[in-house]
């Protein structure tokens, strides 16, 4: 409340204590919000320390060299901890899914942007969103109960096999690739496309020879992200691909991935601190580092893309 002071001007001294109190509350809120924003970083640090902590103990019992170069994973029976079968399984299943899913997603994005009439878009886009929201156990079940029998009949696959997982995971990542690629294509300025058309290119040629290459780093970022997603996919692998941990690349036989193994083996009965328990974390660490690397490169590519077309 301002009072008239000696010189006739208002005196705000009474107002100041209240203002300071407000400042305190504002400051506290600011700090609280900052802390909340830091949760993600804290969580990442927690993940890293949990994984590294247990892995380091693990690596005192089993050397990293044995772990990463060993081709036999039979911890319970033979005490052998070679992670190569899991790594190969991950590369085969995730790689196969990416090889199938990425071109499909890219083609879908190109078609939706360039050719699809409005009514087609209005059906396809919601469908892709639904697809993205279906829980992965549903896909896993579908793989086991409907895809696998077909593979058994046509290719003589076994009941648990890698191909079933590859096909279904490919289907699963199409919405991701499609929407990210569409964003990348949309970011390319339209005057590039017009320039190509003015030179006598067909719509297809303009898209594929000018717009697509111009969007390449953005599309590359989305491919890496999709591959990372496939690497992390767990339930489809667990349900449809099995638990077999021999080193092989035969997709018609059971195989498993890093993620699939962790989900299968962590049955809660492992005593804290036992080598078996810690081996889960060593596998988890490998998985985490793989996806982290993929995501970081993808971020770098996306940043470069944004620089070009911001």
């Amino acid at each position, binding site marked *: 409340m301002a009072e008239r002071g000696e010189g006739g001007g208002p005196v705000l001294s009474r107002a100041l204590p209240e203002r300071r109190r407000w400042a305190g509350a504002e400051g506290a809120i600011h700090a609280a919000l900052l802390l*909340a924003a830091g*949760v993600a970083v804290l969580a*990442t640090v927690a993940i890293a320390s949990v994984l590294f902590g247990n892995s380091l103990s693990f690596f005192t019992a089993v050397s990293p060299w044995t772990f990463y170069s060993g081709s036999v994973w039979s911890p319970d029976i033979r005490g052998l901890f070679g992670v190569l079968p899991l790594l190969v399984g991950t590369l085969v299943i995730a790689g196969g899914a990416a090889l199938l899913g990425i071109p499909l997603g890219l083609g879908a994005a190109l078609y939706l942007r360039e050719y699809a009439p409005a009514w087609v878009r209005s*059906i396809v886009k919601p469908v892709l969103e639904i697809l993205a929201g279906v829980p992965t156990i549903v896909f896993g079940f579908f793989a086991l109960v409907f895809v696998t029998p077909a593979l058994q009949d046509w290719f003589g696959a076994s009941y648990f096999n890698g191909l079933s997982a590859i096909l279904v995971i490919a289907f699963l990542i199409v919405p991701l690739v499609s929407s990210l690629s569409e964003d990348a294509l949309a970011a390319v300025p339209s005057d590039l496309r017009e320039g190509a058309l003015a030179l006598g290119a067909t719509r297809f040629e303009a898209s594929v020879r000018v717009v697509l290459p111009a969007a390449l780093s953005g599309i590359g970022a989305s491919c890496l992200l999709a591959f*990372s997603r496939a690497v992390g996919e767990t339930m489809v692998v667990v349900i449809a691909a099995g638990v077999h941990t021999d080193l092989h690349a035969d997709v018609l036989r059971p195989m498993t991935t890093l993620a699939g193994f*962790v989900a299968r083996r962590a049955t809660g009965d492992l005593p804290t601190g036992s080598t078996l328990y810690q081996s*889960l974390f060593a596998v988890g660490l490998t998985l985490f580092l793989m*996806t982290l690397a993929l995501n970081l490169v993808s*971020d770098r590519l996306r940043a470069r893309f944004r620089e070009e077309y911001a």
Partner: protein
Amino acid sequence: MRPRSRQSRGVREVLFRIGAIACLVAALGVLAVLLGSILVTAAPMLRPELVTNFPSTTNPWRAGYWPAIVGTLYVVALTLLFALPLGVAAGIYLEEYAPPGRLTRLLQAGVANLAGVPSVVFGLLGLALFVRPPLALGPSVIAAALTLTLLVFPYVVVTTQESLRAVPRSLREASLAIGATRWQTIRGQVVPAAAPGLLTGSILAASRALGETAPLIVLGSVVLLTIPPWDLSAPFVVLSVQIYAFIGLPGAGFQAVAAAGMVVLLGMLLLFNGLAIVARNRLQRKR
């Protein structure tokens, strides 16, 4: 130099369009088959006992999802209770307070990278941090909720940021101009204006939490539970894990039970998303 045939150039385009349409139709078809086949497989089991019975590993006709449904509702509710305030707060900070600079970039990158971590790894985090000593919460509802909170956190943050960004700057400026503080402006004007988007974000988080299986398996979710997990610290089971358990049991009967569980799960998802759309429309109409 010879001219290229106009025909051959056109052919490529036509082939691409045919191929693309074929693929899209096939994808639609696969989705329809997927959902349809699950419904068909589940059909014999779709009766009230499905949701009121306890699970059984011996007789599919007596198996039900009652504890799992209770567990799911419990876990998801708790997860939202933790994740929404935390995520919205973080989103508000990043969008309204954070100055451009190193720290902000780090925080933003942290959110983005957390979203890319495979869900099993969250399970390992929860196992080591919450379930086992030192916190030793056991494989309980609270441990599951804490773990899932971290998992859905990035999604809440991102949708919050997007919703806040959609609020026109003029709203903030008008409020500040009449002397409101930054927080008063945010709490009184910006957040209510962003409410539809925030609601969508909450539903997204709930849907993700509903559908997660792998991290909860790793945490130690039980698969044959005879007592519904009414207690925060009790062993728990959720719908997705229960379904997974039934998938592993032999025989067409259990397949049907598993499929029926998925119908329930998808039904719940549909309900949540439907409510969200309705609520968002009402909120948007009010403005």
